[in-house]
């Protein structure tokens, strides 16, 4: 299970802490323009970008698509689709992906099911990026006790296997929500989980870079001219941080989607009857394991999930390649 971006660990942790190799130099980071140029020239990046765009459209236009297909909505129990033993019917003209054990149309549920993963992946990661950047900036820029405390929290969070973190938070917030109702059960909880699990990665990367930048000439120059901390951060440090920040945030999105699906599968995330791929797979799994061979409502949501993760992973891999590739210098 790869929430994480071991690639991130490779790139940044490799030059930090226990892994600090004396004499290892930090490779120069390409400017945003060069990054964009490299990404555009990658076929994988173009295809995955198109796939992600299509996914977003499917999620937004799910009701329209359902209408076009002329199928019933995601929570409509279709009469007569279950046989005398209560077993669901397979793919047919009126239900292309078949129906599930409640007689609900699987295609409609797969289409609507794109909404939660994308919302959680994008919003959760955005939240993780914002919190992670703030924490990393504060720790890296001010150092001292603040840094020790913040990075202590970050390291502690990183010690938790993310799936168990999701299980724990999901379980704690499942009944009545969390933080005095600010985090309601369901969607908000899952977004919270993804943000909590993701921000430590961003924080570490940002802190690492900021510590590096803090001593660079252009920052020292700005400081010697009397620029305030806020101005140095917003004018000098954040802009040079931005390309890497965007890339690592995008790399975290599939991890967030996977975490959402896993938490929902384990019963600690999205609750029925909301259409959600992880939750659908859980339902199908129970039936499959009890000997029912209604493969369609296991296979279709799973394929949707795999293709979504693949699209984001290919995009992330292309972005990381563009960001990290050292300038060719022969062998």
């Amino acid at each position, binding site marked *: 299970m790869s929430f994480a971006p071991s690639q991130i660990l490779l790139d940044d942790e490799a030059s930090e802490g226990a892994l600090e190799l004396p004499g290892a130099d930090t490779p120069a980071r390409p400017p945003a323009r060069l990054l964009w140029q490299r990404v555009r020239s990658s076929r994988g990046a173009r295809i995955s970008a198109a796939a992600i765009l299509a996914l977003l459209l499917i999620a937004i236009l799910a009701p329209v698509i359902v209408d076009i297909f002329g199928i019933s909505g995601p929570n409509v129990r279709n009469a007569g689709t279950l046989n005398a033993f209560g077993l669901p019917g397979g793919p047919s003209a009126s239900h292309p992906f078949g129906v599930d054990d409640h007689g609900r149309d699987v295609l409609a549920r797969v289409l609507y099911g794109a909404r939660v993963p994308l919302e959680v992946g994008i919003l959760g990661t955005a939240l993780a990026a914002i919190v992670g950047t703030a924490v990393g900036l504060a720790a890296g820029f001010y150092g001292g006790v603040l840094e020790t405390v913040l990075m202590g929290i970050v390291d502690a969070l990183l010690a938790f296997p993310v799936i168990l973190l999701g299980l724990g938070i999901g379980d704690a917030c499942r009944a009545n929500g969390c933080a005095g109702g600010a985090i309601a059960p369901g969607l908000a909880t899952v977004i919270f989980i993804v943000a909590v699990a993701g921000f430590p990665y961003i924080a570490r990367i940002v802190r690492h870079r900021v510590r590096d930048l803090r001593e660079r000439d252009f920052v020292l120059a700005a400081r010697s001219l009397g620029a305030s901390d806020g101005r140095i951060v917003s004018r000098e440090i954040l802009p040079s941080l931005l390309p890497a920040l965007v890339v690592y945030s995008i790399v975290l999105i599939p991890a967030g989607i996977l975490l959402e699906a896993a938490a929902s599968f384990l019963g600690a995330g999205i609750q029925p009857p909301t259409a959600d791929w992880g939750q659908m797979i859980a339902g199908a799994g129970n039936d499959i394991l009890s000997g029912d061979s209604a493969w369609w409502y296991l296979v279709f949501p799973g394929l949707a999930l795999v293709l979504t993760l693949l699209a984001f992973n290919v995009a992330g891999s292309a972005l990381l390649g563009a960001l990290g590739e050292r300038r*060719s210098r*022969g*062998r």
Partner: protein
Amino acid sequence: MSEPILSVEGLRVAFETDAGTVHAVDGISYTVAPGQTLVIVGEPGAGKTVSARAVLGLTRGPATRGGGRVMFAGRDLAALEDGELRQVAGDAIAMTPSEPLSAFHPLYRLGAQLAEAVRAHHAVSPAAARDRAIGLLELVGIPDPHRRIDVYPHQLPPGLRTRAMLALALANGPKVLIADDPTRGLDITAQAQILALLGVVQERLGTAIVYMTRDIAVAAEIADEIAVMYSGRLVERAGTEQIFVAPHHPYTWGLLRSVPHLGIGVAELTPIPGAPPSVIDRPGGCHFHPRCPYAQESHRRIDPQLRPIPGEDGHSVACLLEPKIRRRIWRGLEAGQDPPSLASLASVMPEEEP
């Protein structure tokens, strides 16, 4: 002077990068004879390191284009396959990088790496290789070699690392040593010791040395011949005395005028104006023209070649100025005068190189 042992002819190395083609080494030629020292002087980025690595094919790779010949013992090393080249590398021709620790693998002990260097070329027993390794550490003046042989490279005190790096390069008694600025970052005393050590080794083994440095003062101490490198090319090449007494290239003047205590009658230290050119968007014509106080309009278009200077044996320069004008300017600089104005030069300046 005896026959050259290494002869580099028109060596070129270009890298393809996202930002464009980097012409790191753009057709340089030199020779070096046994027991002689050639010092290649240039600013960082001039292409010294790449030219050093290119001799042993270390710059080869999918994004690299090479060219030219590297003649050694009747063979063109540039035309050899990697496998054949490795038989020469580290045996007859050795190389040292500029950062001592980067010569060593971080995870293996000193002795193992010295022994590996020996056994890569000679079928000797591990015990014999170890004895040889101890001998090498002694040769380069590392105290307590029996103990030092079992330490990891990073455990060596910084002062001994350069010596250990030399021991590794000298493992098989090379006929040619390509030294890429081995004294960079050393203080003046340590530098003098290393240079003296190189002298001793050279005398004992008859090694030809090609020494890259950014410091023309180092060249003054050890060079038999000096080549000045700028923007991937050699712009002036001459015997050491000629370079210091009668330099012909404005860049060489700049180097000499920016270093104290060379016994040259230059009145005051003057840095070279401007910065080294980009390796990707190189200036047209003479690469030095943007920084040259004597550049004419035509120098932006005409690319000077390294040519022998009439009447000065063994002295070549790539400059579009007339030899007698160059001599006059240098005499003036030596006497402490400011560079003459363009107008005063224009009257005697020919429009084009003949």
